[in-house]
């Protein structure tokens, strides 16, 4: 058994995680601010019987506003698993519906226990048992009988309707890593907001209440300054009267990622070139006979940006890209062309969430011309998992 969270801590830890996410701008204040965690929720078990997580209802006044799933097992490496809005969760009512559905399948069903199980995480079911024996398992809300473990292999694209044990299938090594990460996170919360006996709680901060202003007030008392920064490119530096302003261009051949990246950058500055024309300037051949840009010719990007804008843009190549550069350029409203080994894309935004030293995420908004003729928008690319080889920036030459 690898239970990580005591039932008595569920409300406090859930509240702290939700307060932090709301403060970071990840959760909508319109939905969450002023809400309250009233109970430790419903325990959800693995099919092998271990407690996996708690499904915790979040209420605003008398109304259910959201559900938070909070981990209690080492198969998870962080306390908060998921937050869902607009889903009602009335445990007793669900159990009554489940029992009615079970009696339709087996009118004389005899059981002494009903429990919620994640039969194929995150899919859930209700298990009816007598002693230690399972009598029936019905999928939540569809009330379809969940087949036994031996059944059907998954289909070609999705998992079939079958059960499996998350606990059994999580490698031991990963569980150990999860335990370390999980305990670290909880102990860091404990350090900032220690659990207090009820007597002392009257006057103190109550984490189970999701209140932006109160959480902000609490953070002010903590030496580490909380910071959340996110920025996309806009038409100008005045965000208030413009929408984000950047467009994706897919590369038109398998090797024209640089041409597409340069095209995106020029588009931003209102230079309307066909990709074939940009490719021609970079000596990348034609649509029917395309070439890639050799590493030795990286500097051509600078030359082409400047020549295709009649030197109205002053372009720069950086051979040692850093987070500071990405952040600085986006804050100056400049898109970047980003070369990674073997590929080129553009960067049009960033996010950095840092509530405490241990709560940091750095991400880039990447407009990627791959796959050809389509491209994808990546929000967010984890900055700490990528290798950056070159960046190119451009600024309008001022007179």
């Amino acid at each position, binding site marked *: 058994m690898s239970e990580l969270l005591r039932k008595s801590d569920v409300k406090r830890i859930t509240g702290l995680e939700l307060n932090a996410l709301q403060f970071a701008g*990840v959760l909508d204040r319109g939905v969450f601010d002023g809400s309250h965690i009233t109970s430790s929720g419903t325990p959800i078990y693995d099919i092998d019987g271990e407690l996996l997580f708690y499904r915790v209802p979040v209420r605003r006044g008398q109304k259910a506003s959201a559900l938070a799933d909070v981990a209690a097992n080492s*198969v*998870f490496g962080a306390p908060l*698993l*998921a*937050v*869902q809005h607009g889903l009602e969760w009335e445990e007793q009512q669900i159990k009554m519906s489940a029992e009615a559905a079970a009696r339709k399948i087996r009118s004389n069903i005899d059981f002494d226990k009903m429990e919620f199980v994640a039969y194929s*995480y*995150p899919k859930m079911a209700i298990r009816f048992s007598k002693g230690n024996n399972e009598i029936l398992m019905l999928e939540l809300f569809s009330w379809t009988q969940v087949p036994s473990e031996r059944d059907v292999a*998954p*289909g*070609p*694209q*999705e*998992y079939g309707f079958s059960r*499996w044990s*998350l606990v059994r*299938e*999580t*490698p031991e*090594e*990963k569980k150990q*890593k999860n335990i370390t990460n999980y305990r670290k996170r909880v102990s860091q919360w404990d350090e900032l907001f220690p659990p207090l006996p009820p007597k002392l709680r009257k006057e103190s901060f109550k984490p189970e209440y999701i209140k932006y202003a109160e959480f902000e007030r609490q953070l002010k008392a903590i030496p580490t300054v909380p910071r959340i920064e996110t920025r996309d490119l806009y038409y100008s530096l005045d965000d208030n009267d413009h929408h984000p302003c950047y467009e*994706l261009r897919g590369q038109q*051949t*398998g*090797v024209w*990622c640089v041409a597409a990246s340069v095209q995106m950058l020029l588009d931003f500055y209102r230079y309307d070139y066909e990709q074939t024309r940009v490719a021609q300037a970079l000596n990348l051949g034609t649509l029917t006979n*395309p*070439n*890639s840009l050799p590493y030795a010719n990286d500097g051509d990007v600078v030359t082409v940006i400047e020549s295709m804008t009649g030197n109205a843009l002053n372009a720069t190549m950086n051979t040692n890209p850093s987070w500071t550069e990405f952040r600085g350029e986006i804050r100056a409203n400049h898109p970047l062309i980003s070369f*990674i*080994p*073997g*590929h080129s*894309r553009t960067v049009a935004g960033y996010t950095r969430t840092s509530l405490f030293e241990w709560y940091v995420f750095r991400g880039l908004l*990447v407009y*990627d011309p*791959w*796959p*050809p*003729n*389509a491209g*994808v*928008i*990546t*929000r*967010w*690319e*984890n900055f700490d*998992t*990528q290798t950056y080889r070159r960046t190119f920036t451009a600024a309008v030459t001022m007179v």
Partner: protein
Amino acid sequence: MKIMSETDNKIVREEASKLFHTIVEDSLVKREGRLLQPIPIVNINGDTEAWFIGVGVNDILAGFFQLDINLNLMRYSSFQRRTSSLEGCPRIDAWTNSGEILERARKYALPNEQLGVPFLTYDNNISRIVWGVRTLIHECSSRIIYVAGDYVYSKQDT
């Protein structure tokens, strides 16, 4: 931790499932999106280097997660050009159905070229995901045909 077996797909999907709730911002995808079966992204030697987990809405591929071999998030990428719109996004089958991918490679191949089983790989960089199909011509020369959505090519072309 190096994940190699197919059964571990479930663990990959579970990781992606956690990320889905926190990373995906588009309201349509949040509401109607579902995670597809993880597909290993292998290098030319067949070693798994990353995982591709599609996010589907009905039969449309709205985006995908890419996780590294240690299941760290590498990125969430979307084919959507506009919020709450799937216009222009590819069909799921175009990116996940190996039969369809093989068919596209077959149309590209020479008449006497024998085709192998498609595998998800990358071209130059792990972020340039593409299907590869090994081929054999006259039992003496071989090549790989690459299929990236509707775009098909081989290295000899480029």
